[in-house]
């Protein structure tokens, strides 16, 4: 979940007439978790579905609603203007077809505001922008740009001075040499030309979705902004723009339209959505019985508009709340406005009878039997390493199931057997007193169509007198007491076991596992200094009863 740093005093100014305590008490009830606090600064974690919470401006809007200082939907006041136009050329249609934009005037930008805008941009790029692939945003100093603009495609030898650079670079150089170029260049790898926004003087404004031109850099001296969003579909680009527009309006800017024409593009309308909901559904889902007017005031506290229409409530949802899909989302909005702290838990008597899964209860009984035989239960990961599973135990590595890109070297392949993990456990306990007797029940994995998962039981005993007779006797008792099953053993060989001290375990003429004395070389590999005996059986096929 993304994290943002806020200042209480700045928030107080933005919300108006509230105490610091009111703010810190309310944040969790907007769904914002306080990670840490240090005097005036507070770090909060917000949900990726609410990009409007990526700035303090957006959080202030939410707090105003919850604290009741300002409720109802935020209306965007966008002045229609003919001054700002972008025409879209068909060349870009197959690369990144859509552009939209807005102009924001007469705002004050200090360092903290720039920081908030950058955080918002990052969040929008990562979340709804899907790492700039779906849509991306550029914020520019309006006064450095000569309109009208053109959004088109250009060859890779086109040159301009990109943001944070002092000299001209070609598109190819930007993609090869700059960090953003390396990170996001692959979005454009399928086309020879790249998207570009040029102004009336043919100067580059932006190279979406990679980088802006240096000339339009926003500083604390900037008064007027131009925001452009490009993307692979129109709705997502406009969604992203609506978040930025809402935040800029709250930040004190006045908004003006940017007219978009050409190649299936059109000017953004920031249309509000209307969703009908029956108040009964809200009461039913929340387990409440509150009046329709209470529901309406709750929805308004969540910064939506709501009014009665017949038996229903009609909700008006501002464009930036594209996380709202339908009535169930409004149930949540009503609950948040009502206050989660005001919902008291209730207990409805269950209409059903509970039951433990028979496989779970059989495994539990078997575990109790093993404990009764003096064995201690061990727990290992199913995701283990080649070292434990194959190298240390001398097993053949033909059918490995591995995971991609594991961050941990100890966890790269799925186990097909439990015993090596238990040997590893012994090797980590050589300083503890003997005898050491352990068992584990768990899932093992083998390639099938696509994968078969089975439950195994494995058990080991390590002490100076450990021998085949002891472990066969334990195995025999466990299965006899646990399941009333009689076993036979037939001589076999296995790379992990000592030759002549190893047998297949036979139940109903079928081998269900292996028992024996662990090969002395393997014991040596693990630096264990006493003999070790053990067995492993598959429970899934012949032992556990499925009901």
């Amino acid at each position, binding site marked *: 979940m993304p994290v943002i740093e806020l200042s209480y005093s700045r928030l107080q100014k933005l919300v108006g007439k509230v105490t610091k305590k009111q703010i810190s008490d309310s944040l*969790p009830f907007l*769904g914002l*978790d306080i990670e840490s606090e240090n005097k005036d600064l507070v770090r909060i974690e917000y*949900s*990726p579905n609410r990009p409007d919470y990526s700035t303090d401006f957006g959080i202030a809007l939410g707090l105003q609603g919850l604290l009741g200082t300002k409720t109802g939907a935020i209306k965007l006041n966008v002045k229609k203007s003919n001054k700002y136009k972008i025409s879209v050329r068909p060349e870009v249609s197959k690369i990144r077809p859509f552009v939209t934009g807005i102009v924001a005037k007469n705002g004050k930008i200090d360092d903290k505001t720039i920081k908030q805008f950058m955080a918002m941009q990052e969040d929008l790029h*990562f979340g709804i922008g*899907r790492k700039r*692939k779906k849509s991306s945003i550029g914020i520019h100093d309006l006064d450095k740009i000569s309109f009208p603009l053109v959004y088109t495609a250009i060859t890779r030898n086109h040159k301009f001075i990109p943001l944070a650079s002092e000299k001209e670079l070609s598109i190819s150089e930007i993609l090869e040499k700059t960090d953003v170029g390396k990170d996001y260049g692959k979005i454009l790898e399928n086309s020879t030309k790249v998207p570009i926004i040029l102004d009336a003087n043919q100067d580059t404004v932006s190279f979406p979705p990679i980088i802006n031109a240096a000339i339009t850099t926003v500083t604390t001296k900037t008064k007027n902004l131009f925001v452009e969003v490009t993307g692979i*579909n129109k*709705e*997502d680009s406009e969604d992203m723009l609506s978040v930025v527009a809402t935040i800029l309006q709250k930040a004190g800017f006045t908004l003006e339209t940017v007219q978009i024409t050409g190649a299936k593009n059109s000017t953004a309308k920031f249309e509000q959505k209307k969703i009908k909901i029956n108040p009964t559904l809200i009461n039913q*889902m*929340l*387990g409440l019985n509150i009046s329709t007017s209470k529901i309406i005031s709750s929805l308004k506290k969540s910064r939506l508009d709501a009014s009665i229409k017949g038996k229903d409530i009609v909700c008006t949802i501002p464009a930036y709340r594209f996380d709202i*899909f339908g*009535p169930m989302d409004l*149930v949540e909005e009503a*609950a*948040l406005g009502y206050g*989660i702290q005001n919902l*008291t*838990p*209730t*207990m*409805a008597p*269950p209409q*059903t*009878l*509970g*039951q*433990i*899964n028979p496989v*779970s209860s059989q495994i*539990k009984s078997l*575990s*109790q039997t093993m404990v*009764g035989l003096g064995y*201690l*239960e061990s*727990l*290992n*990961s199913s*995701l283990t390493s080649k070292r434990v599973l194959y190298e240390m135990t001398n097993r053949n590595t033909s059918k490995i*199931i591995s*995971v*991609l*890109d*594991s*961050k*941990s070297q100890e*966890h790269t392949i*799925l186990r097909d057997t439990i015993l090596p993990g238990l040997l590893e*456990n012994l090797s*980590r*306990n050589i300083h503890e*007193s003997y005898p*050491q*007797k352990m068992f584990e029940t768990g899932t093992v994995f083998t390639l099938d169509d*696509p994968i078969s*998962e089975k439950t195994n039981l494995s058990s080991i005993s390590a002490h100076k007198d450990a021998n085949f007779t002891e472990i066969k006797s334990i195995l025999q008792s466990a299965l006899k007491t646990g399941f009333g099953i009689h076993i036979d053993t037939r001589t076999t060989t296995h790379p992990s076991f000592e030759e002549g001290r190893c047998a297949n375990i036979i139940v109903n003429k079928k081998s269900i596992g292996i028992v024996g004395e662990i090969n002395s070389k393997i014991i040596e590999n693990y630096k264990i200094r006493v003999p070790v005996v053990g067995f492993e059986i598959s429970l899934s096929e012949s032992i556990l009863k499925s009901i």
Partner: protein
Amino acid sequence: MSQVFHPIEKEIMIVLQKNPNLSVEEIQEKTNLSIDQVRRGIEWLRHKQLVVVNTSKKEYAILGKIDIPNFELPEQKLFEKLKEKNQIPMNELHQFLDKNEFNVAISQLKKNNFIEMIKNANEILISLNKNISANIPSVELFRKISEQNKILKNNIKDLPALENLTQRKLIAIEPEVMKRFILTASGLIQSQKESLQKSKTFSADTILVESSEKRAIDVEATVPETFVARTHPLKDTIDEIREIFVTLGFSEIIGNMTQSSFWNFDALFTPQDHPARELQDTFYLDGISAKKIATPEQIRKVSESHKKNWRYFWDINEARKMVLRTHTTGVTIKHLAENKPDEARIFSLGRVFRNEKVSYKHLVEFNQIEGVVVGKDANLRNLMGIQREFYKRIGITKIKFWPTFFPYTEPSLQTMVYNEKLGKWIELFGMGIFRPEVTKPLGITKPVLAWGGGIERIAMLKYGLDDVREFYNNNLNWLRSATKCQ
């Protein structure tokens, strides 16, 4: 309450009762015990405050460091010679004694008036005095000390001889700390009881009393540790949680840990380009895809819901990719899609996986419980009530609910529980109502309440651990010592 004593303790107490103020050696003489047994017994009794030590310092005369062959002092040698021949010229004596010895011998014997020296014309004649009573005092004392090794200084009467030998460094005075032991008042009472019992031994039914005498041992002594065989502490917590939900009317379902992306993500309304589905969060199985993932209708409806709401190209090959399940919710939703119950309480419990760096708070593989309620009474407050009941049964009463976000539930809440030890609120189970975008495409018509969370977190609170890795280290020291009943 009567104390039971070790036989060694008993013997020592009875001896000390009769003879107060004995040393270890003296106790040994009066009992059948070895010196080590006496020392040990005395230590036990002192520890129990039944015996106190009485320390005294004594001085002993012992042999000095000068080596005297055959313990024969020079004056002795001269004396013996003179006894043979009454009168010997001094020159002749040099044959028996070297110059040093000679001087010492003459001066010692002269000091004690044992000899006379007569000057002739040419020589000096030495003869024994006529009226010598016994032996030379210094020789006598030296002999005694050499025979007995040491003599208490206070017992030596011949002080001139003592001084003489000391000055000549033939003997030395050595201090020695003496420890003697006496019974304390309670020791005396206990020893009287013991001697009474001992006399009883012979009066009543001998065999019976003797056998009971054998049974009575020092119950206060330490004993070696026995290590218990046990189920794993985390398994105990899992079993406990399983049982709680069964008693709350839930039935357990089991599903595979390897799942197709379809059930792990797509069926739960997580778009295919969502960051949570990337390699860096989810374990994909290398090169493994499922051929059959769901019914054609399920696939069609789920993909339509994605296309409509998330506006992207839904790729069935993405949905076929096999992953290690990131939650057990996929198992539950599949069960609901297959059974479409009108009324149900089910849960699923097992290992889930996240591609994370292992640390004190993160594992790549951990246990999760996750359950659903389907039915007409399904509402958010009931869901909160089930949570509250569960926490109450594991001993957590201070809880609150905060809103949160999950891609497949709406509304969504998380439980915060107060941890007294840490003095802060921590996040436990998440919960919510399955989104219609999840249930509708799968033909589930009734509202579904869902909740779930990690089990290790609860077990950590229970066992007071601050490193989650401990559960999978299989460190015998911890497994053998963690308290079973919490």
